């Protein structure tokens, strides 16, 4: 094979990476030895490879709070990234996660996967929290775990804020925010064990609400700390869970965000009260039904299949599918009893 400059140029990087066979390699090297232009080109290409290698980072540790930020997103099931405040700008431990943008934190129903060989429910969403969570994950009526990073229990601003209990030694004996036991729980119906009482399912599932609502509320309030305390108090009064997502400063602008989970029937009033904390920049409510009707239809189809077969093994398999799907639909109904409010406070 004859080697000319064009061919050499085409494969010169393969030569550098030692990816040419021995014969071709010899031919290319012979050509380069005799050709000043290709020799110069080889040096330039070597320099590019060398430059790329120099730019590489051998090992970098992400900023502290990185894993917390990821876990916060996982727990809030949001697709919106969470910024991390550099250590020097942090306020206190529970502010380690700062939400750079508002996240509409939806309680997830997730994708439902039937065993292979059977119908898979159409769902564009990836398998998320609920698929991976144990079956009893929905039994906790409080949607926010107390162990979750950044969680703050509800407090009543009218009785606690600005009225510290000082003991004889001058020490504030008030519990810290994260030490206060939750005083309320978000109301939710008791979980219903799946049965094969199909009519009961039909009634339960068709009557229940199956729109999951989330509201994003953006408010400008001059004193963020005061607004935060008031918001926490309002949440407690509404028997809602209150969780700061984080705080971020940019010069003299402070932004703070919170996830509030309220019972559906108390959410509207709470949103109205929160709106009075300052100037409302925007308020947006989203609803999601997670293809509920399709899933319900599939459930009823499974029921029909059970009714129309005498094959005991098949019935057993179908009942298993039925129960699994029914449990998820019930859990969805249960989630829909709550409404998530993402509150954004900004001082300017």
């Amino acid at each position, binding site marked *: 094979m004859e080697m000319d400059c064009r061919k050499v140029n085409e494969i010169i990087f393969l030569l550098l990476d030692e990816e040419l066979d021995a014969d071709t390699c010899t031919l290319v090297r012979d050509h380069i030895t005799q050709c000043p232009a290709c020799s110069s080109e080889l040096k330039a290409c070597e*320099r*590019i490879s060398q430059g790329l290698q120099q730019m590489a980072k051998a090992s970098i540790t992400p900023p502290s709070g990185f894993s917390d930020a990821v876990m916060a997103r996982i727990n809030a099931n949001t697709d919106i990234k969470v910024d991390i405040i550099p250590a020097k700008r942090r306020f206190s431990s529970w502010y380690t996660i700062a939400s750079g943008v508002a996240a509409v934190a939806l309680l997830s129903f997730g994708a439902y996967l039937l065993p292979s060989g059977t119908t898979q429910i159409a769902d564009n969403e990836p398998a998320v929290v609920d698929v991976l969570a144990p079956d009893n994950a929905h039994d906790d009526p409080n949607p926010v775990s107390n162990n979750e990073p950044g969680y703050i229990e509800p407090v009543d601003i009218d009785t606690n804020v600005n009225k510290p209990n000082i003991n004889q030694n001058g020490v504030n004996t008030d519990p810290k925010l994260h030490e206060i036991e939750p005083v309320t729980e978000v109301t939710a119906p008791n979980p219903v064990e799946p049965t094969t009482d199909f009519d009961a399912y039909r009634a339960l599932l068709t009557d229940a609400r199956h729109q999951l609502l989330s509201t994003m509320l953006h408010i400008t309030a001059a004193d963020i700390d005061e607004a935060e305390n008031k918001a926490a108090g309002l949440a407690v009064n509404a028997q809602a869970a209150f969780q700061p997502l984080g705080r971020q400063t940019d010069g003299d602008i402070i932004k703070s965000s919170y996830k509030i989970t309220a019972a559906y029937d108390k959410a509207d009033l709470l949103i109205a009260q929160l709106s009075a904390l300052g100037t409302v920049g925007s308020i947006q409510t989203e609803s999601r039904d997670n293809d509920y009707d399709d899933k319900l239809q599939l459930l009823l189809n499974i029921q029909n299949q059970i009714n129309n077969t005498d094959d005991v093994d098949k019935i057993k398999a179908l009942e298993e599918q039925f129960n699994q799907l029914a449990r998820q639909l019930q859990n969805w109904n249960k989630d829909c009893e709550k409404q998530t409010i993402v509150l954004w406070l900004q001082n300017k």
Partner: protein
Amino acid sequence: VHKAAQGDVGAFEKLILLYQDRVYTHCVNLAGNYDDGQDLAQEVFIRAYRGISNFRGESDFGTWLHKITVNCWINTKKNSRLQLMSIDEPRLGEEGDISREIMDDDETPIETLERKEFNEMLRRALDNLTPEYSAVLVLREMEGYSYQEIADITESSLGTVKSRINRAKRDLRQQMQGLLGSDGNGLPESK
């Protein structure tokens, strides 16, 4: 991994701590700056969490995360969701950073400056490549993976990887030629 795949969130958090340096480094190398690298790394772990029930253990978990990283990078860049920082933004020297950029003992200050300028141009040229090309170059040149390993990570054939890397480097060379002059004048001497 097994526990995480069963829905154990605590186990997944441990996986993050175990693999975060590796993923973050890869993401910074791909994105070329720390902020975008961090966003990308977050996205990678979120996607990993959502897909971990599908992880069958056929490959190393780290390799699986690399696959997600590359796919995430390509998708993100294609969707232009990741707004890349300006070339003028500081890229080096942050806390926890161990750079391979070891200064040559014989390098004069002018040579150091030239090298830095050259590398900045190179980074700009790399950012201009298609995400598929930049991903394979980062894996090969910056992270030292073999062609076969890159084929596994990108789920491509060896031939495709070979051709992609060669084309990517030629594209890079052409861009650098444009920046430095047709004769390549200005290229620092190879050490």
